[in-house]
């Protein structure tokens, strides 16, 4: 069954994520980092960062929380068993560091069909408490074979 394309532009509940040291360290180790700036506050400060730096793709944590809300939206009609992660982008404005409080209001930036497949683009502009945008994350989920029609 095709996705509901009229949901383009729909926004979802705001996500809040405190960037805590244990999670930042866990993420860095999981991606095989040995760069001390991602593992140690002092090493990061020695190079001018305010605190231990989150690995660049850390905002995926926000993206996963965003997708989790959207893919189960009954209005959207998505069958998650048909979904694969098609594309991903990050635009970084400044490094995220331990102590940042991230907020993002995910939205459906686009829904479109191409051939037999449909594409759902989820955008999350990740801000810190004072409103500064630190990262824009876009995830494109590919829904296999749901376009219907010809």
């Amino acid at each position, binding site marked *: 069954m095709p996705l509901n394309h009229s949901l383009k532009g729909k926004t979802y509940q705001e996500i809040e994520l405190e960037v805590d040291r244990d999670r930042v360290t866990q993420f860095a180790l999981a991606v095989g980092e040995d760069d001390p700036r991602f593992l140690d506050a002092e090493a990061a400060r020695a190079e001018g960062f305010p605190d231990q*730096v989150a690995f660049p793709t850390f905002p995926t944590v926000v993206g996963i929380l965003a997708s989790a809300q959207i893919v189960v939206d009954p209005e959207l009609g998505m069958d998650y068993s048909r979904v694969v992660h098609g594309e991903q982008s*990050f635009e970084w404005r400044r490094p995220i560091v331990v102590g940042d409080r991230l907020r993002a209001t995910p939205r459906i930036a686009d829904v479109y069909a191409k051939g037999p497949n449909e594409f759902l683009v989820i955008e999350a502009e990740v801000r810190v408490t004072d409103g500064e945008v630190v990262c824009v994350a876009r995830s494109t989920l590919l829904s296999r074979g749901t376009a219907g029609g010809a």
Partner: protein
Amino acid sequence: MDRPSIEALEVGQEVFEATKVVKREDVKAYADASGDQNPLHQDDDFARSVGFPGIIAHGMFSMAHLAKAVKDWAGNPAALRSLSVQFRAVVYMDETLVAKGKVAGVDQATGDVTLDVWAEVDRDGQRVTAIKNARAVVNLA
């Protein structure tokens, strides 16, 4: 880490090649760190039930390896401006993921360097491109 000298870069030049063997325990660690607990990345029986020979790595696992390679080359996490990728093939356990980057453009005025980047595995003698049509922008000013 030293950052590369922008003056020395030429379009078409290959600037990094970073290899990583994809291990089951690392994929599990990535699932826990990222919060993506899709069983496709942890449960062989589930993966087989949807047509794969066994679990596959998260696309974002491969993207993280690519981001690390770009960051290591740039020398500084603050130099990263953007990375956009397409996931075009799955990656299985114990495959060797190779991230590569090539200079696509240099803006001497702003210090922005655009790279064409990708990630591939060798599967039974065939090169399979897991991440393609990918671009990174780093600022080396």
